[in-house]
């Protein structure tokens, strides 16, 4: 029972952190929200017996990506107060529909009787480590993700460094 309460609490906190991340008007707060969302997701992944995914989420999504984003924020100008006020008003409208969409999705899952009792994919084996799993099973993905991070870092340099035309 207490485990269920913890899972529900983590899920609710995850959704709340994600909504705050995309709705806050300040970019730096948004980055902090992203890091918090990733940290909560890490906890959920640990709870789901997926430590490899959790470690990757924590290191990359809660660590490296916010670092790139903070460097990007450091190169931008502060939003003026009028624009900030407009953003705050607009965000209420944007998220007014969110509870309705979530309720509709939940209703559809129950109403359509979608089977959700799947066995989880097999574990990677007793000797599996982050290194062996990533390198032996998902080597191409690893290189792809390195390329995504490199593209993001170059993007900061290309779009934000130097004077805008």
């Amino acid at each position, binding site marked *: 029972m207490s485990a269920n309460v913890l899972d529900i609490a983590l899920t609710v906190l995850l959704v709340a952190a994600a909504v705050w991340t995309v709705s806050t008007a300040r970019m730096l707060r948004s980055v902090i929200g992203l890091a918090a969302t990733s940290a909560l997701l890490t906890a959920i992944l640990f709870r789901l017996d997926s430590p490899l995914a959790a470690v990757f989420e924590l290191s990359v999504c809660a660590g490296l990506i916010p670092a790139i984003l903070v460097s990007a924020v450091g190169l931008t100008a502060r939003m003026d107060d009028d624009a900030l006020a407009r953003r705050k008003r607009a965000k209420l409208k944007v998220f007014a529909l969110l509870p309705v969409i979530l309720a509709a999705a939940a209703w559809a899952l129950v109403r359509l009787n*979608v*089977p*959700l009792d*799947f066995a*989880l*994919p*097999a574990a990677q084996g007793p000797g599996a480590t982050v290194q062996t799993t990533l390198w*032996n099973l*998902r*080597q*191409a*993905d690893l*290189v*792809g*993700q*390195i*390329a*995504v991070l*490199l*593209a*993001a870092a*170059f*993007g900061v*340099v*290309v*779009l934000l460094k130097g004077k*805008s*035309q």
Partner: protein
Amino acid sequence: MLDLFILAPLACLILINLPPVGSRRLALPLAMVLAGVQAIAVLCLPYMPRLDGPLTSFFNFGLQITPLGRMLLLAVGLVAFVSLLVGQASLGQDRRLWQFASMMLLAITGMNGAVLVSDLFSLYVFMEVLAVCSFILIAFNRDPLALEGAFKYVILSAVASVLMLGSLSLMLLVAGSTGFAALKAALAAGSASPLLKLAMAGFVCGLFIKGGLAPFHAWLPGAYSSAPAAVSVLLAGVGTKVSGLYALLRLAMDVLPPSAALGQAVMVVGAFSMVVGAVAALVQKDIKRLLAYSSISQMGYVVLAAGCFLADAGSADWRLVAAGELAMAGAIFHLFNHSVFKSLLFVNSAAVERQAGTTDMQLLGGLGSRMPVTGATSVIAALSTAGVPPLAGFWSKLVIILALWQSGMQAYALLAVAVSVATLGYLLLMQRRVFFGRTAPNLQGVREGSEGYVVAELILATVTVLVGLAFPLLMHLGSFLLPANLNL
């Protein structure tokens, strides 16, 4: 050996970013050499011995090349080379060229990876590499229109990513793997889970958004028309093809089970794109926007043919199966042809924009005599796009229309012919407004573009003409052009 298609661009990226700063001057030439070597290597690949060495034993990406993949790798090499040529002619400063070359190398990595992997999650990862590079390249000049175009692409691409990633998680849950073979087996089973079918539908919708097909095309005209010239060439030539249509064709051939209903649904999207793109192109006043809508229309042919393949592949009548396979061959051929002639049209528009200072057709006219190479190659590309013989576009459209007719889908075949006529109409109208008629007084001093534009135009026009003239030979060689399982 195949791993080099991913590792070599990354190695070049590291090389041009190493100190001393002087190495940045080599960035663009090195990227051009890499793209050129890729195009040549792909052509030679069937005749090259298998290379085993320390590199191939250390890396194991599990890559796989198909005839469709080979065609796309060739297009990536060719179009990236041309895009870099245009970038050299239009971007100017060493620092900007270095940044452009770096982003291009990452984009090539993403495209090559997406083409070669045999796992849906890996495909998604490399599509994201390309998507991130595309956002940055569209906004490269940091002007308001470019930023708006990039922002629209980011938003719609994020929607596609959510659909695809959500679908992948469901696939992993139901099938236990995201490998093509495992998914095919799970879908082919008589008791395939409805959740798996739903996941596949979600993934395909994501591909439609990434591929810019109507009605998911809202981002495409803005992105193509506001991006720097060299980036428009890359995006229109291969970018959206790799991230949307290649994946769709690969799924149709290697994962999705044959189904008349599924095939019909895909055909409806293809036909809708063909018509919407052509109608919208008819009323455009800007060359780049016209070409963007034309791309949506031409991609409709590819999707229509892929739908025909899916609808016919499971038939008990061997003639329908053969017609479906012919449709897929036409789809692959048209994908390659469109890469070439649409890149050429975007290079033409880039040269016009550079020399005349605008792409607004109402302000242009009579440039054919002042920019003879641009004018002549633009006519070749326009005629090939419209499907006029003996150019490359004629053969690919003919194959698709014949396949549709043989499949008993005469209405779709006639629609494809009608859209071709409309294509000829709006492209000839564009030619008349830009290259023919009286030269406006403010354009009297316009001259041919620099060597970069001219060389790019000549390369692409030569490929368009040669592929058209040598089509019977290419059909004879077969294995390069047609799907592996095709038995005409």
